[in-house]
């Protein structure tokens, strides 16, 4: 893939007054927020852009207490972690060291180190950072089945946004497809919001998520059907029901027809890497990390020397590790821009890696560890 054309080539003119900043952070989830905090503490001037209406990324939708270590705020409910991080950023806002743009999406990266920002109002403007950290998180996978486009069939994340962020009851009777952690947690959150959950379907012969989350929904009497999937949705203007099929060696066997006005699809996430691709960053397909992910060195730096990555956009993992990766990236940027010495940066990054190691010790992280072996590189020069 080739690098995008320059704005001058595309628009026939160069942008008039291009805003400059030291560090541009794209994405205001746990990775982006932690990266911002670290960079600010080290003295950098930071511009943070977030396409959503509020900061926090996935965190603002999570009502459960997080796993991980207490250093990464485990035991705290997801949305509170977001509130805490945002509060820590506040003092830097007044000082002019931090600039935050909400409802603003980074839509293009140009070779001259120019990034195009698009605001909800329709305004598009360029910004020129010295360094950029991409922390754009992940997006949900979809499942192919007849009628999967009917209104009422949402990604698990969509359901969470509607329900936990905006307080809308997403339906009356739900069917969940996918018994990984996210499917299980969303099922539980639906129950908390007073929505009936008919069943959770899982194509594999075992539950993918953690037993604690499975136990919570089982306690409510929600069946988790292993080796089952949805074979089609029923409805005309919106979803009215679904056909559940058993997965057998001879293919799908329809077994039940159920009535429901909500179907939640939770079959995995894939890293959001559009900007990295545009920037011509070297990528690799690593199934263990959710799809195409950028090669990076130990400091989270990509093959483009001014671009770093952190969080789910570097490979699907957890908020806890996303926060550490954000700090590592900012420490590396600070070193590059001369805000801290080589030794200081090394000490800090070694410590952060020790915490990553601790978090990744668990058996559930074995995939991540394998994935990392494929993408962790040392850049020459």
């Amino acid at each position, binding site marked *: 893939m080739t690098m995008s054309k320059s704005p001058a080539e595309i628009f026939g003119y160069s942008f008039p007054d291009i805003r400059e900043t030291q560090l541009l952070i794209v994405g205001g989830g746990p990775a982006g927020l932690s990266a911002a905090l670290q960079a600010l503490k080290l003295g950098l001037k930071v511009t943070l852009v977030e*396409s959503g209406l509020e900061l926090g990324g996935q965190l603002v939708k999570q009502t459960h207490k997080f796993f991980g270590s207490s250093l990464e705020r485990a035991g705290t409910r997801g949305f509170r972690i977001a509130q805490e991080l945002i509060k820590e950023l506040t003092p830097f806002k007044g000082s002019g060291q931090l600039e935050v743009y909400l409802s603003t999406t980074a839509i293009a990266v140009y070779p001259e180190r120019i990034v195009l920002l698009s605001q909800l109002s329709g305004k598009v403007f360029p910004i020129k950072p010295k360094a950029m950290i991409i922390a754009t998180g992940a997006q949900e996978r979809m499942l192919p089945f007849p009628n999967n486009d009917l209104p009422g069939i949402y*990604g698990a994340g969509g359901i969470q946004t*509607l329900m936990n962020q905006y*307080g*809308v009851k*997403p339906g009356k009777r739900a069917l969940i497809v996918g018994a990984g952690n996210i499917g299980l947690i969303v099922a539980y959150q639906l129950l*908390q919001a007073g929505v009936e959950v008919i069943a959770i379907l899982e194509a594999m012969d075992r539950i993918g998520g953690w037993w604690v989350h499975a136990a919570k929904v089982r306690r409510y009497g929600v069946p988790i059907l292993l080796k089952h999937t949805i074979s089609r949705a029923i409805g005309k203007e919106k979803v009215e029901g679904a056909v559940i099929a058993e997965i057998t060696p001879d293919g799908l066997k329809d077994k039940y027809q159920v009535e429901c006005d909500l179907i939640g699809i939770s079959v995995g996430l894939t890293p959001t890497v559009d900007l990295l691709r545009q920037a011509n960053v070297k990528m690799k397909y690593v199934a263990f990390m959710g799809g195409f992910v950028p090669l990076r060195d130990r400091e989270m730096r990509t093959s483009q020397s001014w671009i770093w990555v952190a969080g789910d956009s570097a490979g699907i993992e957890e908020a806890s590790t996303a926060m550490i990766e954000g700090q590592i990236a900012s420490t590396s940027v600070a070193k590059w821009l001369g805000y801290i010495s080589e030794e200081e940066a090394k000490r800090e990054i070694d410590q952060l890696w020790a915490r990553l190691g601790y978090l990744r010790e668990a058996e559930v992280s074995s995939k991540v560890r394998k994935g990392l072996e494929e993408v962790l590189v040392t850049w020459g020069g």
Partner: protein
Amino acid sequence: MWLEEHPILDFSSKRPKLVKFYFEGKEMWGYEGLPIAASLHANGIKVYRYSTRLNRPRGFFCAIGKCSSCFMVVDGVPNVRTCITPLREGMRIERQRGLGKIDLNLIQGEAGSDDNV
């Protein structure tokens, strides 16, 4: 339907003001500042547009401005991502059929940093 009671979450701070808006000419109420799609959903409206080729109903899907499923015509402007566009008093919201036509005169705005931090 809006969630009023929740074992963990308190939505009151996110619902500063109930405002009137119009969906296909019909008067409805929603919360100012929350996405248009949220208020429509709470009012039982789940079909936001009809697809370009097969005319299939489309609702909201990703909820974070990434999939284009929720495009509607808002105050005459088509292709508005209603899942991330805040509701304002008096907005006129229409289901979109097909691609929609853009009147460039209607699109304008100023860059500005927000103060929500």
